[in-house]
């Protein structure tokens, strides 16, 4: 069956569209319960307060209408769970239309049993139309507005011409005026006018609000897309830069490997420096690529991982450097709770090896590195402490910034570009963890203040 689409064409963010319709639906359900309560009050107290009285027919009719509203509202409450956010099947818009029809029906009956044109309750139709305008598509709400006008007029005229019984409320009016034709004609004309104008205004405003929300979400999408494009561009450019440097390094390795013949030690020393400096460039490029990847990656891998093993494998990769400096490397595991963490193995390995290599870089020969693992509430705390050069107090707040290098290491021949710790911080934050730094560390002596990196990660 080819049905007219109930979803406005500008609703591209279907989830948000459905959510707002759903929210309004459940709001109407709550409103209906209060309407039931008000009807009960109306039935029981108006007699005393306003000295009016209902005929037994009126009393039973209003009571059963109230009960029906209460019952179908319970059913609607239950039905809410089974709605599907799709154009096919029973969706929240269909649900709104069902509510609308039921309410109109109940209200028509209520108005009829409280006096038709004499009943002040017919003003509720206007209220009803405002609510409908907020959630229903334009053609549905305009059709129901016309239907309301026709049905209400039909009731009023049928009462006037004696086709149906008039149920005026006794004690309410001195002279019934349902039989005054010019009065009912003018009243109905004004009623129709008010209904149509109300629907127009309310529908226009609701649509404008929806569209504004849509535009906002749209702009957000565009911003995200631009960010991704930017990162892709960076990756591309950086990769282009890496290609020639890789070629240079391949030649340098060839020459340093003496494939082209012997080298004088003078030249060899300089070429080794050249190799080290170009390696610095490659490291920097790799770090930029890593950061870009982190920014592009919203969905991290979620593997169950053993932290100790991750640190172990990072240590293994850096073994040569650790042995070359003859560093005293210790791992202390104080944990009682050896639960795993959830995360991206590749990224966490980068994180740990960056931290360890950072530590190795800034300790002297025969230096000391101690990694301590502790239990904390809901997580694990890892302390990477060394007795290296430390970080000056004024630099502590900046060390995780891109391209920042400590003021005490810039001129002392420590190589680096100041991106490693930025990557590290991003990795651990993406995993719901934290990283902070303390200097001097617990391993300090007179000449070596040392540094501690303290990382926390949530456990499963």
């Amino acid at each position, binding site marked *: 069956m080819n049905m007219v689409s109930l979803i406005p064409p500008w609703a591209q963010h279907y989830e948000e569209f459905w959510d707002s319709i759903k929210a309004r639906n459940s709001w109407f359900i709550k409103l209906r319960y209060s309407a039931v309560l008000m009807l009960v009050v109306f039935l029981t107290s108006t007699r005393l307060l306003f000295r009016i009285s209902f005929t037994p027919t009126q009393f039973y009719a209003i009571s059963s209408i109230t009960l029906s509203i209460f019952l179908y509202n319970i059913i609607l409450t239950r039905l809410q769970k089974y709605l599907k956010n799709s154009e096919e099947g029973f969706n929240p818009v269909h649900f709104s239309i069902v509510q609308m029809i039921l309410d109109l029906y109940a209200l028509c009956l209520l108005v009829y049993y409280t006096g038709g044109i004499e009943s002040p309750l017919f003003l509720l139709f206007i209220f009803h139309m405002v609510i409908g305008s907020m959630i229903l598509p334009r053609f549905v709400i305009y059709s129901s507005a016309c239907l309301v006008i026709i049905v209400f007029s039909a009731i009023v005229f049928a009462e006037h011409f004696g086709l149906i019984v008039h149920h005026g409320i006794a004690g309410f009016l001195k002279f019934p005026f349902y039989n005054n034709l010019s009065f009912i004609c003018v009243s109905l004309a004004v009623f129709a006018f008010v209904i149509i104008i109300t629907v127009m205004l309310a529908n226009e405003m609701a649509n404008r609000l929806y569209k504004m929300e849509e535009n906002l979400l749209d702009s957000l999408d565009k911003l995200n897309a631009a960010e991704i494009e930017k990162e892709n561009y960076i990756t591309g450019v950086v990769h282009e830069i890496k290609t020639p440097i*890789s070629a240079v390094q391949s030649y340098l*390795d060839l020459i340093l490997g003496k494939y082209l013949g012997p080298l004088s030690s003078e030249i060899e020393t300089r070429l080794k420096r050249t190799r080290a400096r170009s390696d610095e460039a490659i490291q920097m490029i790799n770090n930029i690529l890593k950061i870009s990847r982190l920014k592009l990656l919203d969905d991290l891998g979620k593997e169950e991982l053993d932290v100790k093993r991750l640190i172990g494998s990072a240590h293994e990769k850096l073994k040569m450097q650790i042995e070359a400096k003859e560093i005293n490397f210790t791992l202390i595991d104080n944990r009682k709770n050896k639960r795993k963490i959830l995360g991206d193995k590749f990224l966490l390995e980068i994180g740990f090896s960056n931290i360890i290599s950072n530590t190795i870089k800034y300790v002297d020969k025969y230096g000391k590195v101690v990694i301590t693992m502790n239990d904390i509430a809901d997580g694990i705390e890892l302390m990477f402490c060394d007795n290296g050069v430390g970080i000056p107090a004024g630099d502590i707040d900046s060390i995780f910034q891109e391209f920042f290098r400590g003021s005490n290491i810039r001129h002392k021949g420590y190589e680096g570009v100041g991106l490693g710790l930025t990557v590290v911080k991003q990795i651990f934050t993406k995993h719901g963890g934290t990283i902070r730094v303390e200097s001097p560390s617990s391993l300090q002596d007179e000449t070596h203040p040392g540094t501690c990196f303290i990382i926390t990660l949530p456990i499963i």
Partner: protein
Amino acid sequence: MAKIAIIDDDPDILDASSLVLTSKGHEVITANNPDDGYKIVVDNSPDLIILDVMMNEPDDGFFLAQKFRKNNITTPIIMYTSISKTIGMDYGVNEMVPVDEYVEKPISPAQLIQKVEKLLHKHIER
């Protein structure tokens, strides 16, 4: 010694890799684009192919590797990559990409020789 085909669009990488491999006594043939690369392999039937993953287009190397396998050329393939490990595209040696080894650029002579020898050895055993 073995005959090795190197296919890469970077002339310096071709030169450097050729120098390393000829120094070990291998015969090296080169091509700087996928089409010529396919041709030299068909014409000379080398014992080993070294292939750059990105030539004119990213993935050129992968497509060429797949073309070799599709046409029943089972010669072992070493692939040069430059971003794989860095950005975590850990291709790995699997059935999707029909290559036997990876070497990440910049190419270290020692690593290249070691991987070439390993594959040639394996190939002869087979």
